[in-house]
């Protein structure tokens, strides 16, 4: 005969057996033992099985111990025993609850561990997705850079192609105006002058475009040399004196006799020309003032101020963006490519300098340019796209 093993019985039946055992033991205890002995029995017969039952049964154990507790209370009352005895099953009940909580806590721990594992797996998946996305973005970046490069090549070759026919237009218009191909009457001269002005405007637009595409492609090299900034400024102001006279504007100067700087003379001139021509363009009364000074910190500062229309503060940031003219009504009156200041700023940044605008709407603007007095060679190679 096989040996009897209590664990071969189903867990539910085991508990029923336990319950019956407890029941008979307690009935027996009330008849044959003193109150003190009953207390001892409670501890012996209820404490261990109830605790075990609750561990086995989990949440069902709570219900079981509640029923057991109620049963104990009812028995006590029914038997007319001392009410203090009621405390015993209540204490047991609390104990059982604590036991249950411990077993539950273990279960919660186990669950949270498996949750952690799950989360880990999820995280790994997530990290794989992120890696995939990063490589997608990298590829996208490469595509964008390529597109940008193609755009720059397109712009520079287009600029060349556009300029070639324009060279003939400007050249032949010049010849005709000079009378080399025969005498012109006044109306013909007037119309040809219009053609010449328009074609020169178109040329400067194309040149700006070419410069910008070169800067953006990182292809602009500065031809560095030492030169006198003041001499360059004077030269430029001379070339603008006639236009200023026509508009009845004054040109004031606040310049030292000489400032030797090491930079690209042609590009620095380009910057000054742009600022001076803008100042004259947008000023109808008063005039412009140009000043320059050598600063102690290895930089040179020059500024162009005017008594022109000025810029509202909220529009100032748009000024250095491409194709922005602040007042659309003005665009009709004043020719401009909308690239001048954008290009100017790009060049200044390329040189390692900065441009600052101070303006009062309706009263005028001051553009201040700060450039390193001696530009370092490395800045030449710096890619200003970044």
């Amino acid at each position, binding site marked *: 005969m096989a040996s009897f093993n209590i664990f071969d019985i189903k867990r539910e039946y085991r508990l029923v057996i336990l319950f019956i055992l407890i029941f008979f033991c307690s009935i027996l205890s009330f008849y044959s033992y003193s109150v003190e002995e009953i207390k001892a029995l409670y501890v012996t017969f209820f404490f261990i099985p109830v605790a075990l039952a609750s561990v086995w049964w989990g949440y069902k154990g709570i219900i079981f111990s509640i029923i057991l507790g109620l049963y104990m209370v009812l028995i006590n009352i029914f038997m007319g025993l001392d009410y203090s005895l009621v405390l015993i099953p209540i204490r047991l009940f609390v104990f059982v609850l604590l036991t249950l909580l411990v077993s539950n806590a273990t279960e919660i721990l186990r669950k949270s561990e498996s949750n952690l594992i799950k989360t880990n797996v999820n995280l790994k998946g997530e990290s794989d997705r992120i890696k995939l996305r990063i490589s997608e973005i990298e590829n996208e970046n490469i595509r964008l850079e390529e597109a940008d490069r193609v755009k720059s090549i397109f712009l520079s070759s287009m600029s060349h192609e556009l300029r070639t026919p324009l060279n003939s237009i400007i050249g032949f218009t*010049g010849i005709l105006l000079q009378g080399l191909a025969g005498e012109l009457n006044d109306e013909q001269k007037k119309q040809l002058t219009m053609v010449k002005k328009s074609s020169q405007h178109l040329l400067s637009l194309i040149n700006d475009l070419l410069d910008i595409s070169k800067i953006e492609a990182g292809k602009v090299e500065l031809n560095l040399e030492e030169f006198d900034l003041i001499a360059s400024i004077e030269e430029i102001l001379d070339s603008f004196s006639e236009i200023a006279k026509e508009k009845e504007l004054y040109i004031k100067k606040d310049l030292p006799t000489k400032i030797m700087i090491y930079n690209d003379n042609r590009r620095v001139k380009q910057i000054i020309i742009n600022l001076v021509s803008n100042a004259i363009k947008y000023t109808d009364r008063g005039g412009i003032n140009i000043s320059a000074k050598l600063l102690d910190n290895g930089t040179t500062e020059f500024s162009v101020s005017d008594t022109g229309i000025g810029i509202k503060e909220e529009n100032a940031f748009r000024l250095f963006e491409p194709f922005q003219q602040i007042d659309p009504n003005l665009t009709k009156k004043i020719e401009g490519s909308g690239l001048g200041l954008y290009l100017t700023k790009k060049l200044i940044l390329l040189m390692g300098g900065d441009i600052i605008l101070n303006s009062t709407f309706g009263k005028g603007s001051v553009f201040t340019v700060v450039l390193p007095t001696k530009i370092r060679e490395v800045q030449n190679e710096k890619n200003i796209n970044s």
Partner: protein
Amino acid sequence: MKKILIVEDNENNLYLIKFMLERNNYSTIIAKTGEEGIKKAIEENPDLILMDVQLPDINGIEATKRIRSFGKVTSKIVAVTSYAMTGDKEKVLKAGCDGYIEKPINPETFINELKHYLS
């Protein structure tokens, strides 16, 4: 009469320069490619060569180098460059040009600029 060789591939530009020079009493020879330019420079030894830098076969810089390496040509060579060709200034001078004129050609100053090289 001073003799000027124009090396230029663009028909309109060629006509423009030729017209201006002839109206100002210079005699002109034309070449439309770099090779032709070298050949004519050696054959004719003109007073001045106006050399376009961008040519269909060999560029103006290379053509200038070859003319100069030939040795016998005494012509002044003036390069005609596009605007803002970075480094071209040094390149053309190093190749043996005496100077350069930037496109677009300004008819008002062009002849005076040439006179500077022809004197």
